[in-house]
């Protein structure tokens, strides 16, 4: 009895193994499927092409209805967005897939912190979009960031992060400070150190339980975002420890960290979100994309209390690009979609939805934030403040290890001083050691 059942298992086992292994192999090969119409595509006949768009965070294309609009314009195209929330998870994945030549999406988003690495090491894996699109649409420095030395443009600019300062009018009033946005901008014009000086004044009469800013790293990012040279020089040499821009931004951050004006929060932590809701800080360095974040996290309690003033210096913080990998099976269609998504009209639509600021100046005159958002920020002229900043942002020299170097300064150096009570000299030394490790020296 036992053996007879066993015997019959032989062929079954064979079949099982065969099925398993072929299943596995098929699973490997079929990573980026195409062809069949897709859930987001909403039906459609055969021969319909599915384009995949790989993004991180919230790009807002889905939210602004751009995919639906494009699919309506092109009935033969279905679009599927593959979102990874965090860039530090997204980018390593993209790097390995690009090099393997398979598994990439038809359009792959690239964050500004990674764009130089992509330009310097992955240019061969991307289609030259400079030949396809009208390059004059973009801000020069934005285009230059995605262009190789021999003139190949691997990504089209999406948004940028022109800088402003968002502040709580109600808290400023209680602390006896100026509340008018133009006069405030006048007070700190030209130097973030002046903004920090105002912080000292704020802390003298600070409403109970509030600090002047959210974190020292925030003002560091804002200040360093206005320097042409930060971690790399024009020729690609690492110069972070000699760079004037880094030194100045560091000093400003150190003044902030050591004079008890920061709420000592870590940006994008849950406690930081709570800080918005509870109103524990009065100002925050505010790139355009932060507008939507503040509105969402501060909620109703912050409505009409926030205001926006021009930043001390023009600076850029964040922003992205869209590239088309050569491994895409529908290059022609993907290029067309990337061009369409990054065109000024579409960038304006994303701005209207979530205040991601366009990298194409021709869109600026037509920008209209949502009425709710304008009301939320005390009717501040958002478009004007951010476009003034955008037009004066200096070109920045970036390098392949920009992101880890930045993290070493902000998450090690500054955080040690701010939260562990180290001296600025100790913090600088710790950051230096970390960067040495990053560069493999």
């Amino acid at each position, binding site marked *: *009895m*036992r*053996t*007879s059942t*066993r*015997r019959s*298992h*032989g062929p079954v*086992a*064979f079949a*099982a*193994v065969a099925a*398993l*292994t072929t299943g*596995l192999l098929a699973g490997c090969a079929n990573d980026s499927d195409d062809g069949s119409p897709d859930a987001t595509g909403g039906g459609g006949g055969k021969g319909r092409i599915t384009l995949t768009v790989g993004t991180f965070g919230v790009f807002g294309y889905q939210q602004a209805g751009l995919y639906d609009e494009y699919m309506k314009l092109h009935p033969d195209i279905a679009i599927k967005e593959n979102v990874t929330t965090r860039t*530090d998870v997204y980018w*390593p994945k993209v*790097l*390995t897939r690009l*090099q393997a030549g398979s598994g990439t999406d038809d359009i792959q988003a690239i964050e500004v912190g990674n764009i130089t*690495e992509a330009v*310097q*090491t*992955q240019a061969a894996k991307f289609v030259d979009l400079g030949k396809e699109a009208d390059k004059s649409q973009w801000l020069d420095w934005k285009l230059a960031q995605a262009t190789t030395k021999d003139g190949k443009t691997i990504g089209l600019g999406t948004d940028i992060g022109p800088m402003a300062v968002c502040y709580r009018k109600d808290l400023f009033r209680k602390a006896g400070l100026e509340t008018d946005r133009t006069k405030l901008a006048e007070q700190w014009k030209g130097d973030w150190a002046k903004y920090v000086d105002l912080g000292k004044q704020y802390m003298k009469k600070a409403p109970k339980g509030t600090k002047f800013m959210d974190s020292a790293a925030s003002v560091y990012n804002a200040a360093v975002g206005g320097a042409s040279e930060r971690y790399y020089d024009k020729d690609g040499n690492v110069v972070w420890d000699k760079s004037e821009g880094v030194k100045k931004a560091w000093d400003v951050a150190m003044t902030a960290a050591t004079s008890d004006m920061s*709420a*000592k*929060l*870590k*940006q*994008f*932590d*849950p*406690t930081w979100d*709570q*800080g918005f809701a509870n109103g*524990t800080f009065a100002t925050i360095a505010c790139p355009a994309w932060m507008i939507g974040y503040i509105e969402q996290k501060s909620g109703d309690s912050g409505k009409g209390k926030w205001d926006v003033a021009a930043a001390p210096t023009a600076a850029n913080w964040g922003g992205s690009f869209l590239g088309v990998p050569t491994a895409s099976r529908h290059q022609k269609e993907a290029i067309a979609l990337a061009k369409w998504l990054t065109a000024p009209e579409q960038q304006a639509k994303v701005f209207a939805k979530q205040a991601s600021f366009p990298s194409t100046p021709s869109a600026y005159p037509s920008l209209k934030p949502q009425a709710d958002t304008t009301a939320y920020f005390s009717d501040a002229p958002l478009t004007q403040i951010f476009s003034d900043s955008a037009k004066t942002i200096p070109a920045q020299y970036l390098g*392949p*290890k920009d992101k*880890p170097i930045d*993290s070493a300064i902000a*998450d*090690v150096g500054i*955080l*040690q001083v701010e*939260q*562990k009570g180290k001296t600025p000299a100790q913090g600088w030394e*710790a950051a230096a*050691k970390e960067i040495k*490790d*990053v560069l*493999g020296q």
Partner: protein
Amino acid sequence: MTSSHEALAHPASSAEAAPGNQPGAARGAHGRGTPPKGTASWRSRLYRWDMKASPYVLIAPFFVVFGAFSLVPLLYTAWYSLHHVQLSALDHQTWAGLGNYTNLLSSEFFWNALQNTFSIGVISTVPQLLAALWLAHLLNYRLRGSTAWRVVMLTPYATSVAAATLVFTLLYSWDGGMINWLLHFVGVDPVNWRESDWGSQFAVSSIVIWRWTGYNALIYLAAMQAIPSDLYESAALDGAGRRQQFRHVTVPMLRPTILFTVIVSTIGATQLFGEPLLFGGVSGSKGGSEHQYQTLGLYMYDQGWIIGNLGKASAIAWSMFLILVIVAVVNMLLSRRLRKSP
């Protein structure tokens, strides 16, 4: 073992085990009993081959999967660890010899990570196993609703690391976290759990303890229930109280199980990754601004995927592997000695 034994015993047992009601088997038995030469020998060879090969076929899926997803990556990692490789240029490898390893030995970040792994490992594993043993002992008594208790014990284990860590991160948050709020009632100043040296390690360990204690308790409980009750009876006759029974009967009988949980927990502690990563929040792979809770797993991830030095990350991975081998050998020697001493 059983299967090859069965294969040898095949003709006889099938004849015995297939009385009339199994037509297929009976026909087979008949065929073998009166061998008409050609077909039967071919057939029996086929059967014998089937008997010999099918066990291997049955276990093959494991080895195929193991080979493809464990062995090949393991060897490939070894190859990488001897080269300078950047994540952004995987095909561009330059020979480094043992350069990555000597770099690690002289790197204070590596030693720091090793030390953290060890200290977090100790403060999470020891209390965890002691608590599990104690809980299992309690559950081993006749209790009302014992199944319910057991299920409750296993719930933390069934919770995802991410969910558990998220909740713990909020509990431990500096500003407005529940733990600091409770401490304030006993007059303790708020602790910056994430950035303090011992506080962060304590917090990470507490997540590990919370998640794994119930799991280990259930393993102990299963082993306890296998202990023959006459041992307890005779111990009771000798006048041993509950505590003495636990010390002199339960613990000695559990020795192999305890050893097993120690090994499994040690492996888990060496590879500790998810809890500290998520506890750190943004750029959690740094394990705090001073790397105060950066474990080896985090250091490897930071080097390989955040910074992009894949060669060095591979060297860290292999160092971890070697450390585990050493731990396993020590464990083996220990268990051998334990087995010798009654």
